[in-house]
């Protein structure tokens, strides 16, 4: 069963706007990761946030983690057409071996 659920399922924005995607999960986790996947390609790791961290930045990416609400958000600022892709959160449960992926958000950035 999936650990993470994401919303929205799809998001369409104009270039230059910010994009926010949310992820919720069910069990206690060791860390939460975000991945990007271009259509038909492999997944690319974007950022990892540990359970004892609340916010992390990487370039135009900002990730927050609220372990009390079992939720995370990914913010992409000043989006570009090249950001068009599917974005997945993935969790590593405490005591578990598996990295489990959420349903994903399909982002479309219009030029």
């Amino acid at each position, binding site marked *: 069963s999936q650990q993470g659920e994401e919303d929205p399922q799809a998001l369409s924005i104009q270039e230059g706007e910010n994009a926010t995607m949310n992820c919720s999960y069910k069990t206690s986790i060791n860390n939460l*990761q975000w991945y990007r996947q271009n259509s038909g*390609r*492999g*997944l690319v*790791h974007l950022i*990892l946030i540990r359970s004892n961290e609340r916010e992390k930045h990487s370039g135009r990416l900002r990730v927050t983690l609220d372990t009390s609400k079992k939720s995370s958000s990914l913010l992409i600022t000043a989006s570009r057409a090249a950001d068009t892709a599917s974005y*997945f959160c993935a969790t590593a449960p*405490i005591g*578990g071996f*598996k990295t489990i992926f959420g349903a994903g958000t399909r982002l479309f950035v219009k030029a």
Partner: protein
Amino acid sequence: DTEVTQTPKHLVMGMTNKKSLKCEQHMGHRAMYWYKQKAKKPPELMFVYSYEKLSINESVPSRFSPECPNSSLLNLHLHALQPEDSALYLCASSQSRLVAGASNTGELFFGEGSRLTVL
């Protein structure tokens, strides 16, 4: 560019065929994974190898047979597949050491996948 290489990129096979998917990484990672991904769905874990030993089998049908000949290579042998097995098969590796009681803490490095079509 990915450091995990998967071959072939595309594979079409009949239900009676035997074929293999191959995956190679040279990052020194000791955990390797097979995921299956259907269109517009997230990757689903199939198998995990840790130090060349099978650590996790997510109740995958026996028509899928994984093999880890050494720390750099991971194969997925396919036999008597069904059309519903058509999907993108993704290989990944990580530095995580998967042992009893320990959690996976590392990022996954994915290959570009092998697109499988079963006729």
